């Protein structure tokens, strides 16, 4: 098992180099000069411009800039924001908990509803229920976030007035945030109504972000389950006199989970991409919104640093999924 994990980690190295190269070059393909943007409406002399370019290392050749950058990354230095002058890594981690909280809640929704819905659709094959679940999943999968989000806001915040429109918590509350997770911190603060406020802010963005992964997971669970239910070992379990609950919930589900876990791992990437849109729509102060703002400001170090950190996180999550896969599927573990 240890060897299996080490081999997986070894595969990450070339992936990392590829991702860093892409993050580095993409941002330089964007039109616009960060130094001119920094100067704003005051403008600057060519000499000042050259000095600023030199100070930022932008006058060096691209390969040299890349090597400088890679060297910094490997020592934990992702550079500093040209706008706020704070280290990228600090800015990232001050915003990351908000995104993490949103993503975790979205994932809980997606897995918690997607898997049972997929199982139900598989068991009730050919029924109206199955068609309903699969039809809803298809609609959810096809729903663009930039449309689905405002739609929910109009209904629940506008017409019904049940939830707030944006932010993480009502401005009425102020308390220290040791964990960075608003749900937990609001509970810890002991302030009355704080938790409810945090939760009501979270609900809509979490639903919006969860919709696509939920649909994908439900569909994948259904097809995996249908395949597994026809297997010989499911018949064996029934031949042993096992109740349907156990046949489906243990014998079939464990096998059906093998492809589903892979899908869940892949959805983490979808979640990160979705977070950018969702956070922008709901003014959620996470890394998605931070990245979008940085693009508009041509904040090179932030964009490439943020991109790289997100990529690293996705890679690590997929590593975790691979390891988990080994636990679920004994055939992988022993080869």
């Amino acid at each position, binding site marked *: 098992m240890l060897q299996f994990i080490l081999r997986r980690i070894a595969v990450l190295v070339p992936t990392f180099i590829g991702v860093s190269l892409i993050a580095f070059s993409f941002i330089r393909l964007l039109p616009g000069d960060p130094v001119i943007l920094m100067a704003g409406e005051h403008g600057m002399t060519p000499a000042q411009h050259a000095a600023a370019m030199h100070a930022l290392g932008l006058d060096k050749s691209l390969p040299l800039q890349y090597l400088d950058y890679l060297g910094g990354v490997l020592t934990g230095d992702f550079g500093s924001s040209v706008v706020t002058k704070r280290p990228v890594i600090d800015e990232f981690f001050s915003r990351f908990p908000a995104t993490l909280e949103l993503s975790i809640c979205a994932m809980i929704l997606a897995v918690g509803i997607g898997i049972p819905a997929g199982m139900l659709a598989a068991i009730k094959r050919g029924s109206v229920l199955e068609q309903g679940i699969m039809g809803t999943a298809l609609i959810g999968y096809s729903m663009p976030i930039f449309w689905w989000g405002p739609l929910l806001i109009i209904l629940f915040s506008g017409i019904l007035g049940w939830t707030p429109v944006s932010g993480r918590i009502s401005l009425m509350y102020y308390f220290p945030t040791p964990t960075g997770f608003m749900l937990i911190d609001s509970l810890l603060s002991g302030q009355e109504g704080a938790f409810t406020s945090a939760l009501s802010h979270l609900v809509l963005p979490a639903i919006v972000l969860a919709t696509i992964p939920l649909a994908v997971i439900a569909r994948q669970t259904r097809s995996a389950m249908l395949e597994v239910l026809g*297997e*010989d*070992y499911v*018949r*064996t*379990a*029934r*031949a*042993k*006199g*096992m*109740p349907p609950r156990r046949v489906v919930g243990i*014998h079939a589900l*464990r*096998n059906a989970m093998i492809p589903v876990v892979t899908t869940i791992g892949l959805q983490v990437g979808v979640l990160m991409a979705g977070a950018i849109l969702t956070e922008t729509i709901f003014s959620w102060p996470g890394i998605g919104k931070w990245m979008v703002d940085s693009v508009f400001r041509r904040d090179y170090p932030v964009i490439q640093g943020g991109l790289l950190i997100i990529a690293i996180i996705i890679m690590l999550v997929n590593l975790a999924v691979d390891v988990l896969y080994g636990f*679920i*599927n*004994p*055939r992988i573990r*022993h080869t």
Partner: protein
Amino acid sequence: MALLEIENLSVSFQTSGGMFRAVHDISLTCDQGEILSIVGESGSGKSVAMLALMGLLPWTASVEAKRLAFQGNDLRAMGPRARRKVIGREMAMIFQEPMSSLNPCFTVGFQLGESLRKHLGLGRKERREKAIELLKQVGIPAPEKRLNVFPHQLSGGMSQRVMIAMALACDPKLLIADEPTTALDVTIQAQILELLVDLQKKKDMALILITHDMGVVAETAERVQVQYAGEKVEEQHVKDLFADPHHPYTAALLAALPERATDKRLPAIPGVVPGQYDRPEGCLFSPRCRYADDLCRRSVKRQGPEFGGALCNYPLVNGRPTGKEEANAMDDVTS
């Protein structure tokens, strides 16, 4: 009272082309300590009839029977819960493909222990002891070590031994073996058959052996039932069946045995078992039968026990059809 009594069992499947009758009016009985063999080509409904008895058919199947009794209790009158107390405990089944019949995600010990817990309510330690004892019984070396092994680490023969151990876990009164040796190589086939017969004698249980291998029948069975296209065509004691088959189909099956062939060319039965769309009128075997005449293509009658209950107008005696002259004479008189 026989241990198992099946009277006029019919099984139909709902298909896109209408109902397909896979088993038609099959009756059989099996006593304690007896080995009954059911033979027939693929598609003759051998497995389907036994799966119907076990309640393992998919929901597209509809099962009808005049009587379906085990130990005098009608299985159809039982609720699913009561029936699951019989299945896997009093009545067990092993299948054709041992490699895919074991759940790849669980250890041998888990899969063995499951029945022991459900039906016998044994604790963890007792389950382990009993599982080791069962594995020893089916001739698996170093059983303590095998408990923690996953099915993919076992060979086909070993898997079938584990399947047998699982089936015997609760000392069933009846064991149904559905072509247990088909997927195994020849040397292992003999071992598994020997093991089955040996255990059957030791435990004094009834064994229903489904096979299409006449060699297996000759070696193991006491009573033989021949099925063709979902119908029972003959039933005899094994010695009598081999000496004097009454149904032309049985005779053709026996003639096709390589051991019995005298010509250079192995005799074969022309054609295939009729499917859903090409079922003939009258005798289902008539298109492939060398003795069939117009009467056979219109109707067929069941003979008495003196002809092994053969479903044939002109049952064979010592290889010659009987009653044909009289029928022809009758035809001459009437015409």
